[in-house]
């Protein structure tokens, strides 16, 4: 029972990733694309934690931590570039 | 005295994060405590954020209250966004307004701006000295005092006690 509900949650998160990718395709300005990238990052962290829990390997959560740190830097770099160039 | 307080706070913070990452294992806890001590000694002149924290019983009580109020506002804001997004007519009246804050400390302003971003319908766009420019999804008043009271006041009361 619990397994099935968690699987459904994983599918919904994957759908959310695909929907925010559509905004990245459409986005009229670069800032829209950067917002879509930010959202995709957060959803991917959730997906990584989901995969880690499914396969019961605790080391996968370290990947999620590294991922959160690095992609935060990436979004900040894009924002800085839009503002005035690095 | 100030340096001692700052160092102890940094050490407790670092050790707490290390403990969360590793769990109850004697060897790792010992190694972590040594490494945390080294980092504290090297970096305690740069971590000025911890200096502004007040450590009285009243401020501890207020920080717990603040966390509770913040979580309630976060959940409320999500239902607010949900109702706006799910509505087919998309009921928004957005715009950028200006509010004034009484807080002096930098870290207090940072936490206030973050809290504003996560509460219903508001997003901090720019900060200049004592003024915050806020993108508000549903503008109801024009006056700067009214907007300050509606957006900022409920957090400011607590943050004023915690950070000063």
């Amino acid at each position, binding site marked *: 029972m619990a397994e099935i509900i968690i*699987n459904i949650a*994983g*599918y919904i998160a*994957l759908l959310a*990733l*695909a929907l925010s*990718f559509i905004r*990245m*395709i459409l986005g009229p300005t*670069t800032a829209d*694309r*950067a917002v879509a*990238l930010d959202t*995709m*990052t957060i959803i*991917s962290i959730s*997906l*990584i934690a989901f*995969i880690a829990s499914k*396969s019961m*390997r605790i*080391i*996968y959560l*370290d*990947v999620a931590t*590294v*991922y959160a740190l*690095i*992609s935060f*830097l*990436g979004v900040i*770099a*894009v924002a800085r*570039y*839009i503002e005035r*160039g*690095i | 005295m100030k340096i001692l307080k700052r160092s102890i706070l940094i050490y407790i913070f670092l050790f707490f994060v290390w403990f969360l990452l590793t769990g109850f294992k004697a060897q790792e806890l010992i190694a972590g405590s040594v490494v945390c001590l080294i980092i504290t000694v090297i970096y305690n002149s740069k971590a000025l954020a911890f200096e502004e924290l007040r450590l009285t019983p009243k401020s501890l009580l207020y920080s717990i209250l603040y966390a509770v109020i913040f979580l309630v506002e976060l959940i409320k804001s999500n239902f607010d966004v949900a109702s706006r997004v799910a509505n087919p007519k998309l009921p928004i009246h957005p715009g950028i307004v200006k509010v004034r804050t009484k807080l002096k400390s930098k870290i207090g302003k940072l936490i206030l701006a973050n809290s504003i971003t996560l509460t219903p319908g508001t997003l901090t766009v720019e900060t200049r000295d004592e003024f915050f420019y806020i993108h508000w999804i549903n503008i109801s008043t024009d006056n700067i005092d009214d907007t300050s009271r509606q957006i900022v006041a409920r957090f400011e009361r607590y943050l004023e006690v915690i950070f000063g």
Partner: protein
Amino acid sequence: MITVFIIILGIIMILAAIIAVMSKNLLTAIISSGVISLLASIIYLILSAPDVAMTEAAIGSGLTTIVFLYALSRIKKINKEIDDD
């Protein structure tokens, strides 16, 4: 379950690669190549290679984006100087 994940992530990756190649705006191309390595690291993780996934996340999504942005801003600066002369 896992197969569906890999298929959908792969489709998104291909679309992002097409955007990166076809787009006229260089910043868009950089952002979409960041998306590609972001999703590639999830696929590495599904194929049970956490070390590769960590490296891909650090280098592909973080460092390459920053290096590309730095290079782009330098190119713009040089172009401006040439135009001024």
